[in-house]
């Protein structure tokens, strides 16, 4: 995902001199490396100084630039939270905050590097747009599309090695709209970000082993949320499931539940998320998710029993 971002960024930055990249001692390879080489003045590494990175971006935006801040998600938005809130959101400036390793992608780096609450925090901020693509292809589309947003944007990325999931998507990408990326008639899984890969494993198993047709809908834009699109899902399927790599508070799950209540949805609705707890076990990304109940085996049985 980070390379898909980097290449899309490079394509944009070549065409638009307003685009700058400010990093805090972490950068991307691929297109970003090319950008740094070809446009060294528009690439700034402020060192391990994340508050500086965000304020610098806001200052550039006050001068008419469209700056991107880039580092690990925890350092993009947690360390300099007040700079994000005041400099970017309160002043409503077109700063793009890129967080690599959203969720617990940086599994073995431990809790200091896990962004488990990022969607809640960023959605709580007025003026902020929150984007979380599900695969490299959607990352490229979202990166290009976010240039149209007038205010600040949080772009939540995974890490590297995510598979392409949207090549056969029945729905075309429309920026800000939910998108069916796998067809199915019985169950609909609403999800976003790299955990969409797990949703595909589940959908395949549910169909093959239980004959439960399972659709997957990518919610790449968490704020503003495509409420009409979510309502349509809630009224079209008998069973709706939310799977998110995020704390139980403030993410997609509670929003979908609120919408279901408001539109008097009659579907069965179950949400799955990380627990309200830090993760102290070490292992792969999948092993960490499993520690919080987000694994194919557990979810398969849970969803099969709801939908069966």
């Amino acid at each position, binding site marked *: 995902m980070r390379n898909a971002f980097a290449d899309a960024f490079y394509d944009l930055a070549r065409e638009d001199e307003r685009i700058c990249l400010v990093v805090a001692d972490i950068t991307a390879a691929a297109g970003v490396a090319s950008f740094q080489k070809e446009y060294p003045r528009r690439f700034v590494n402020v*060192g391990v100084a994340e*508050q*500086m990175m965000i304020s610098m971006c806001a*200052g550039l*935006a*006050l001068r*008419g630039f469209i*700056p991107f801040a880039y580092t690990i998600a925890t350092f993009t938005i947690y360390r300099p939270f007040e700079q994000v809130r*005041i*400099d970017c959101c309160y002043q409503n400036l077109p700063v793009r905050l890129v967080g690599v390793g959203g969720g617990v992608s940086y599994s073995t780096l431990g809790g200091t590097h896990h962004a488990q609450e990022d969607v809640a925090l960023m959605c709580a901020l007025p003026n902020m747009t929150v984007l979380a693509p599900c695969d490299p292809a959607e990352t490229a589309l979202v990166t290009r599309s976010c240039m149209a947003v007038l205010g600040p944007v949080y772009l939540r990325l995974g890490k590297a090695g995510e598979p392409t999931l949207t090549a056969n998507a029945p729905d075309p990408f429309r920026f800000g709209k939910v998108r069916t990326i796998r067809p199915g008639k019985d169950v609909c899984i609403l999800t976003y970000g790299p955990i969409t890969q797990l949703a595909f494993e589940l959908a395949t198993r549910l169909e093959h082993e239980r004959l439960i047709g399972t659709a997957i809908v990518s919610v790449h834009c968490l704020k503003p949320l495509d409420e009409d699109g979510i309502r349509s899902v809630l009224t079209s399927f008998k069973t709706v499931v939310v799977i998110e790599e995020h704390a139980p508070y403030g993410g997609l799950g509670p929003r979908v539940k609120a919408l279901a209540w408001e539109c008097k949805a009659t579907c069965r609705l179950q949400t799955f998320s990380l627990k309200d707890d830090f993760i102290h076990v070490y292992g792969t990304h999948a092993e960490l998710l499993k520690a919080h109940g987000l694994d194919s085996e557990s979810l398969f049985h849970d969803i099969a029993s709801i939908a069966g």
Partner: protein
Amino acid sequence: MSVQNFSAADVKARCKGYRRRILDISQTVGALHIAPSFSCLELVATCYFGLLKGGTSPDIDDTFILSKGHGSLAQFAVLEDLGVIPSSWLDHYCKPGWPLATHPDYGTPGIEASTGSLGHGLALAVGMAYGDKLRGIDRNIFLVMSDGELQEGSVWEALMTAPSLGIHNIVALVDLNDFQSLGRTSVTLPNFYPMLEKLQAFGWTTTEVDGHDPQAIFSAVENRDPSKPQVVLGRTIKGKGVSYMENVPVWHYRSPNSAEYEQALREIGEVNP
């Protein structure tokens, strides 16, 4: 919004008028940052009536940021004087439905950044200055900061970054009144001092002046080493001009009662005696 011919006497006279104006406003609200505004008035006014170079295009005007946003009345009084904001706005300071409140907000005429939370202005200025550098625009960015503000780590990130990026067109004027909300800065954090050496070590040119002397402030900036960004440490008195307010922490955020108001007016004196 610039005045080409600097006159220290003119700035002093204006500041007397601003103190009276702020005192008048104090009688319309329950509380206001009166002493922090009096402390930085000469620093702010010397920027607007001496240091800021203007033009007809907003793209080439110098920039002013009141990084110690709680001194906003000082900036509002100047902006009113310059005709940038209407008097009716200041007459209705902190009133429902009117645009001016305790801290400067981006979007208000004459306000180039939202401040109020300390430690943001200098880093924003670094971003602005770098943007100007990319565009080849030659202009200065002036800030007025508080001494307590320099306790924020974000300020030191910006102090480190500006000279490292080759930025030399930022002038930060520090309102060195030795007070923060709860007491003397020198008692709160003795190791905050000495300031000059710390700032020089970070690559800034520094000067210490009487922060209530417009001529000294003006000369310090005009005669600076243009190859480096500058910090001007302006020694000031919190609550300057009103004896019972000077160096008394409670006036950080309090309105005088009517007797105190009358005494303050007498001490400040007439603008044109």
